[in-house]
């Protein structure tokens, strides 16, 4: 009973906040609805018994990705009129993409239930006594270790690429020299003097 209530609660909220993500006029509100959608999707994952995936969803998407979204969107100077101007011209293209996605979902579910491809069973049987983390870790670090590391290398390459593309040597900057700052002592910068009355200080 409680599971059913929770499922419909989470599912409704995911759908509603997903819709509001694209419907709301303020981009910051959009990001916030997106975060709510992620959050409720995590709730659905928990209902499925995939608590590890749910936590990762919240940590990675809500905790990192959405913060960066929000960060960028908050700082943009957005012209709302210009944003809405292209709506009609992009509409056919958007509808096309939506249609393709719908077809893929129908095909995917149809093939899965039809059975010959056995999409869900390719990873081999998992011991039901293992917890999520152990099962995923066991697969990821044995059977799929090369794919996993390849994914890591792809990310590393992307990161280095972004740094190389955006990094430029600028003249006129004076970076902090932390070692020198740490070596500095009060005696280097100040001195105690016993100043006679009525005379100026020698600087």
């Amino acid at each position, binding site marked *: *009973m*409680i599971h059913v209530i929770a499922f419909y609660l989470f599912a409704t909220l995911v759908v509603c906040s997903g819709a509001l993500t694209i419907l709301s006029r303020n981009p*910051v509100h959009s990001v*916030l609805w997106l*975060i709510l959608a992620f959050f409720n999707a995590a709730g659905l994952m928990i209902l499925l018994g995939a*608590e*590890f995936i749910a*936590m*990762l969803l*919240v*940590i990675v998407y*809500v*905790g*990192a990705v959405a*913060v960066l979204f*929000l*960060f960028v969107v*908050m*700082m943009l100077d957005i012209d709302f009129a210009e944003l809405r101007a292209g709506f009609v011209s992009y509409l056919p293209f958007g509808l096309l993409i939506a249609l393709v996605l719908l077809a893929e979902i129908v095909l995917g579910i149809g093939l899965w239930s039809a059975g010959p491809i056995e999409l869900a069973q390719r990873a081999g049987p998992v011991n039901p006594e293992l*917890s*999520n*983390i152990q099962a995923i870790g066991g697969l990821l670090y044995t059977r799929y270790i090369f794919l996993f590391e390849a994914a890591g290398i792809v990310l590393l390459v992307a990161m280095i690429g972004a740094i190389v593309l955006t990094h430029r040597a600028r003249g006129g900057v004076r970076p*902090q020299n*932390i070692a020198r700052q740490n070596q500095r002592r009060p005696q280097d910068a100040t001195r105690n003097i016993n100043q006679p009355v009525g005379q100026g200080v020698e600087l």
Partner: protein
Amino acid sequence: MTAFFQELGLPFEGAWLLSTIIGILLIALPVMLAVAMIIYADRKIWAAMALRRGPNVVGPFGLLQSFADGLKVFLQETIVPSAANKTLFLIAPIITFTVALMAWAVVPFQVGVVLADINVGLLYILAISSLGVYGVVLSGWASNSKYPFYSAIRASAQMISYEVSIGFILICVVLWAGSFNLTAIVESQKGYYGFLNGNGFNPLLFPMAIMFLISAMAETARAPFDLTEAESELVAGYQTEYSSMAFALFWLGEYANVILMCALNAVLFWGGYLPPFDWAPLYYVPGILWLFAKILFFFFVFSWVKATVPRYRYDQLMRLGWKIFLPTSLLFVFLVSGFLMLTRYGGAQ
């Protein structure tokens, strides 16, 4: 507790709901009381270190000061700036406050005395603490005012930076304990060298304990890392436009977060509800008292640092997070997992 209500004749769902709500209240209300008292303690410690008296007028020794302050802000008017985004402006302090209380769900107070004994407890804490940044960012943005906005940007950069190294530190602990469940992590800390309880006595994890303490200060934006509310630069940071209860919710959430971080310090590195020495008579003291004593000790350390250490510069903060803590914690993940491979998991094959 669910079983108790089921015996009273309730169906399972009703019993579960009732016991969960009672459990939440049993945790949230004492935490709020603790927050009120710990604000008083903070002010007293701070005053003592500055050779002042601190709050001493309301009630005996000023003990009721926090409650008087609470009453005062409760009676004040909530002012919403006309240019502010009203909904988000009011939601932001609620988020901060709620998130600060949510994480307590998985903190074990005794064997089995925990609201949600889930096997991804530590990940849950990471997830919840990563939500904490939203309250600050939203308040800064929704205020529609310069200094709160700067503060929000600083806060999000700071919290994300230190969450990375906190993540690696937690991984070291998880590797050692072999579990994400906080009760299992506490239990795994029994009997170092036969008589000490606590990961902190492990030479491989002791540096992690220190780094976690410092990262916790940065994560909760306590001094010396309180750049988000550096009053000489940003007025009062993201709280500038807030008044009355909205401001109080930020305040309470901040201190609830600080207590949570102290509790995590105790649970992850210093044995949680276990006594510090593995000696039978000490186990007669209820575990919650040990946990409470450890929380208070770490809170004293937090106040001590706040009273004595000058504020960091922003570039120093970022350098500490990214150039010192991140590589060091990564190195220790390597060392701990290497050590465990060599000893516990049967060496290289």
